[in-house]
């Protein structure tokens, strides 16, 4: 015999009617927070990986291009003669133009603007380079040179990433607490509505755990339903944001594609909501029933 219904008439009372919608809203917010945190982490990691072991030297523009080229060559010579520097290559003018295009327009590189020249530096992973000494040597040889090891930038980026993740974690925890509180109120209302039937079930020999199972499966079913709705709306929102983000991203912002870990987290959110609802309903019912005869 396949059982299709609960022993308690949950369908006839309003105690849990709003629960799926509350859970849907919470899972929706949690999905946005989770994806924000995980995407930020992936972006920071990508940037970290891309910039680790590299530096950029900026050579200020001289009175004319020929002098600038000489200064760039001197700086490259200093770099290449430094032990631990694996490569030092000038960034082509076209590349610099492309980097500046979002701010200065497509013809920036051709308009003879006094744009600094850049040199990409890659360090040997196995040699420890004294960056401060290298910076001093560069400035001595080429006073308009400025050495940027990306350290400050990476530190700030890391701090930003950590802050976003912490904020998202706090938000998700608060949402979980709110979801738990919502389930507690709904369960208590259900206990009050079905008090007479619960007494009857006790009188015919029901243990508290049997009655608690009724409530916990009901809460789980509602939370799962709400969770799936919430995560679907969240996915739609994120999809829309990604589409809106793409044109801006190509110009000035990093690639914010939602990664696999964020997708897995999205899929797990309804299950997490269901688990919280199940556990909370069980604890609420078991505590309440202990007060009964």
């Amino acid at each position, binding site marked *: *015999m396949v*059982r299709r*219904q609960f*022993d308690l*008439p949950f*369908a*006839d009372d309003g105690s849990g009617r709003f629960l799926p919608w509350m859970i849907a809203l919470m899972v929706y917010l949690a999905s946005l927070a989770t994806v924000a945190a995980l995407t930020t982490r992936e972006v920071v990691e990508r940037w970290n990986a891309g910039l680790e072991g590299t530096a950029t030297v900026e050579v200020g523009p001289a009175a004319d291009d020929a002098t600038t080229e000489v200064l760039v060559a001197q700086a490259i010579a200093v770099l290449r003669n430094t032990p631990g520097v694996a490569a030092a290559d000038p960034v082509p003018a076209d590349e610099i133009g492309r980097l500046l295009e979002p701010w200065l327009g497509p013809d920036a590189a051709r308009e003879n603007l006094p744009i600094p020249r850049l040199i990409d530096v890659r360090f040997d992973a196995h040699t420890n380079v004294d960056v401060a000494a290298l910076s001093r040597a560069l400035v001595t040889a080429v006073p308009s040179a400025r050495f940027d090891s990306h350290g400050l930038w990476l530190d700030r980026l890391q701090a930003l990433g950590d802050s976003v993740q912490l904020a998202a974690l706090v938000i998700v925890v608060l949402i979980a607490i709110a979801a738990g509180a919502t389930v507690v109120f709904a369960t208590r209302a259900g206990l009050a509505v079905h008090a*007479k*039937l619960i*007494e*009857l*079930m*006790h*009188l*015919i*020999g*029901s*243990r508290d755990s*049997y009655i608690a199972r009724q409530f916990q499966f009901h809460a789980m079913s509602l939370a799962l339903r709400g969770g799936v709705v919430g995560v679907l709306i969240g996915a739609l929102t994120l999809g829309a944001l990604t589409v809106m983000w793409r044109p801006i991203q190509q110009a000035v912002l990093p690639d914010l594609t939602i990664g696999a870990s964020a997708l897995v987290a999205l899929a797990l959110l309804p299950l997490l909501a269901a688990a919280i609802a199940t556990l909370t309903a069980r604890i609420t019912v078991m505590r309440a029933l*202990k007060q009964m*005869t």
Partner: protein
Amino acid sequence: MVRFQGVAMRYANGPEVLKDVTFHLEAGSYHFLTGPSGAGKSSLLRLMYLAHRASRGTVKVFGHDIAATPRRLLPGLRRRVGVVFQDFRLLDHLSARDNVALTLRIAGVREDTIRAHVAELLSWVGLGDRLDATPATLSDGEKQRVAIARAVIGRPSLLLADEPTGSIDESQGMRILRLFEELNRIGTTVVVATHDQRLIARFNHRVLRLADGQFSVERPTSLSGI
């Protein structure tokens, strides 16, 4: 089976509805519990099916002093008591089959066993063709029989029936009481609460009489003239 010694009962802080009740029900006995409306019949039954605790005195059911029995042991004791409530107390959203099955589900019986036993018992009480009917579509007599089936499906040692004939006609009432006699013959201790003296007179069983919270036990012969 059931032993009351100087038992009193009150609801919350109200007056005592039962005073100094003392009796002993032997295993396999059949008793009527009678008295005028408001005499405390239902309250006495509530003590016996462990829905309420005595305010003083000792209630022993199946040898357990109920006041001293831990809460975790009560479900096991309650499963040995079948109760037919005056107002049936069926679950309106469940079919007759599921109402009766509830007792077994709560006891953790397998679904295939439940299916076979429930159908058999409902057929036995004449409801073999109403298995899937909900209480709203059943007559009072049919509801009564579903309630009885629910009370006896777990083969209780003690069967308590509160005014089981109160809302049905005399012939159906007689049929139900004969059903209880059959159960009593196979060893079930039976207590039937009723205020219908004519009904009591038609059976040769002991009578527990309650009046104004006071209690007495009468032999069947004392009622033979009614």
